[in-house]
């Protein structure tokens, strides 16, 4: 399905029109010069093409002053671009004093945002329109990059170091959030939406769900029930990795496959022995009767939110196979549909 076909991104921040102005200037200047070069080359190549009468170039040297002209003039134009670009960069880097603080964490492969009032969200960010927002951020693992194309800003998110970025939205609406620094398997699934709201709506939203979305409440439960001790979501866990699980085919110990939907996740929490993922043993205790439906829903929606992308996901290897795999086929067996290059 071919959807709409934009040629210019939406402008939704105070900086966007300034960035677009520089872009337009550069397009016009470099476009003109490039077209001029093409036309001159085309014209000269035809006019002075080799013919029986024109076997030999004419003994003519263009004036040497040309050489100076095309060193000095481009240099001056370049300096103009440099100054304009730097001026813009200063504006993008300098955070206004009255900015509203929001905290962000990047991790493989999701964005977690936290509002000062305690509201948490995953892969969605609600902000008020017309107010500078300062995002203070760090990564829990590898380098990510938080990118808002409609606001024309991005900044790398580094482990073990806080970085800042800011923007001021000018239009309400829903805009993309992308991860722009390659960060592993589901890099292209590490996306989300920023919801720009009227300030009154934003206040309402803050008051409305002080406990956060279902998924983020589920995340708290995930820790409360100590799920995270085994489902560590990396290679060292004793339980299967849940990142990217939702919606994929899971191979079981009896070699059957099952789609990881809500029902499967619910069953796996309440009756873990029913379907055991290939490569694991049934060591998980049952949570039947220990968890309210409400909590269950939150947990399921948390696991759902971990499945950032629809595609099949190759599970991370178990620790033992990592150590022995230097030179053996890397793709693990369970649920793996990966083709080897």
């Amino acid at each position, binding site marked *: 399905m071919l959807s709409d076909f934009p040629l210019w991104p939406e402008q939704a921040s105070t900086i966007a029109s300034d960035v677009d102005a520089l872009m337009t200037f*550069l397009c016009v200047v470099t476009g003109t010069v490039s077209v001029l070069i093409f036309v001159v080359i085309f014209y000269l190549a035809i006019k002075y093409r080799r013919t029986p009468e024109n076997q030999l170039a004419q003994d003519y040297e263009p004036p040497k002053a040309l050489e100076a002209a095309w060193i000095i003039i481009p240099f001056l134009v370049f300096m103009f*671009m440099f100054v304009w670009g730097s001026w813009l960069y200063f504006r*993008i880097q300098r955070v206004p004093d009255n900015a509203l603080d929001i905290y962000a964490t990047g991790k493989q492969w999701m964005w977690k945002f936290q509002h000062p009032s305690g509201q948490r969200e995953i892969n969605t960010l609600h902000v008020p329109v017309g107010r500078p927002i300062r995002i203070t951020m760090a990564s829990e693992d590898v380098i990510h990059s938080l990118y808002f194309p409609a606001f024309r800003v991005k900044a*790398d998110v580094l482990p073990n170091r806080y970085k800042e970025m800011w923007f001021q939205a000018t239009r309400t609406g829903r805009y993309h959030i992308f991860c722009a620094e390659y960060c592993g398997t589901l890099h292209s699934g590490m996306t989300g939406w920023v919801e720009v709201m009227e300030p009154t709506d934003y206040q309402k939203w803050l008051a409305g769900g002080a406990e956060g979305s279902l998924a983020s409440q589920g995340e708290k439960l995930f820790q409360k029930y100590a799920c995270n001790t085994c489902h560590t979501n990396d290679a060292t866990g004793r339980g299967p990795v849940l990142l990217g699980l939702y919606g994929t085919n899971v191979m079981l110990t009896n070699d059957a496959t099952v789609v990881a939907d809500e029902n499967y996740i619910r069953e796996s929490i309440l009756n873990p022995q029913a379907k055991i993922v290939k490569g694991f043993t049934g060591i998980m205790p049952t949570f039947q009767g220990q968890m309210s439906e409400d909590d269950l829903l939150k947990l399921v929606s948390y696991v759902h939110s971990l499945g950032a992308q629809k595609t099949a996901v190759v599970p991370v*290897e178990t620790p033992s196979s990592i150590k022995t795999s230097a030179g053996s086929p890397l793709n693990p067996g369970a649920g793996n549909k990966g083709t080897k290059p």
Partner: protein
Amino acid sequence: MSSVTLHDVRFVEPEGTRNYITHDYGALSWLLTKDHKRIAILYLFSITALFMLGGFFAVVMRIELLTPEGDLLTSDTYNKFFTLHGIVMIFFFLIPSIPAVLGNFLLPLMLGAKDLAFPKINLLSWYLYMIAAVMGLYIIITGGVDTGWTFYTPFSTQYSNTHVFGVTFAAFIVGFSSILTGLNFLVTIHRMRAPGLTWFRLPLFVWAMYATSIVQLLATPVLAITLVMLMFERVVHVGIFDPALGGDPLLFQHMFWFYSHPAVYIMILPAMGVASEVVAAFTRKKIFGYAFVAYSSLAIAFLGFLVWAHHMFVAGISVYSAMIFSFLSYFVAVPSAIKVFNWTATLYRASVALMTPMLYILGFIGLFTIGGVTGLFLAAIGLDVHVTDTYFVVAHFHYIMVGGAVMAYMAGLHYWWPKITGRMYPEWWARLAALLIFAGFNLTFFPQFILGYLGMPRRYHAYAPEFQVLNVMSTAGASVLAVGYALPLVYLIWSLWYGRKAGPNPWGAVGLEWATSSPPPMENFHETPVVTWDAYDYPAMMKAMGETQNV
């Protein structure tokens, strides 16, 4: 002006004399050869094979990107494909392409020498290349690597479960191949020029190879050091780059780009050298502003070392260092602009023959111009914040590396094909391929500038649906491009048996390489030429030729 013209100095062997191809027979005579021409042929086969491998990864990725969903490959496989595409194309095709094939073949011929300064080291550099290539292939077959060709830490040292160690080790080894080639060329250019061949009589291709060799020799060791530190951290967990171990991931980026930005010039400087040769030969004219073009190669090589952090404007460097690197990046654009203007001015009042090599080079000038001016967008730091790490960057560097370096490589291959093989390629098919490559290239990569400005990030396996139309255009262009690259493979092989016999100088070009037979004899010249003329001395040559016949 000396009274002796190039025309008088012919070293053409009598018909039936053995040339470098027929000198010896058997596999060992090739695998143990110390002849620079035969080593060039070994490189030609190797890099062509790896170009096809890298191209295969590209084609599969373009098919995957036809639809917004990730449906053909898994995410992990896609990530491995773009990583391997980058590693194979950069380390195993682009960096060796013009220097190791055309440079190896032509440098001694252009200098009037019998061989390079160190023939055995030349063979060693091919073996190092092959060892690294075989390691790379083994790793690809056994699972590949998914870090991106940039190997950013801490992903590469702590989080990737793929063969990072093996691949970085292969890149480490192939780096030494590059260093040895650079060293060999530098010494050869300094020590083995024919009598009378002063620096400012050198063909501009030699100047370009000289500048390239300096970069290879000085930058590649930094990559080697960086990769060793990366391997050390990954295996022994010494904290150098990983903050969890007390290291700094930005240190890795600084060190990596300190090599990898100059590496761009290792790819494009030789391409500029080919462009100068081809423009001179097909206009029958001395390149306008010869000295400016020669010095601009050295200026690019030098300034290329001072701009590495322009890859890191959003990575967390200070505002002031960003400004300095932005300024220097604009500075390095000046010598590149000089070359484009000088090539264009050379066409004025010339005798322009639009044969295949010239078509490729005119295409090269156009595409390199687009690649160059879009670099000005990226150097504007306020704009870079938006477009860095998007398809804008992907389009920009493909315009430089494919539109620039590969087009020039194709130009050089066709231009010197009669010298290398003694046979002409079929002109009509070659022009068709050149036009297909030019059209296919633009259709593939121009939409990616727009995609990038719209905000589509690089290295995305699945993407937002509004980006689909431009991606479909790009994939359509890639299929045209693939046909364009497949054609020369067929007709060049065909020409080895059925091509017209070329004779020593089918283009009526000047330059010592055209003064000997095609293919040249093992020792290149049976007596040492004495040079008394400037490079591209077409007026003198044409005077002599005009008295005999037109080519």
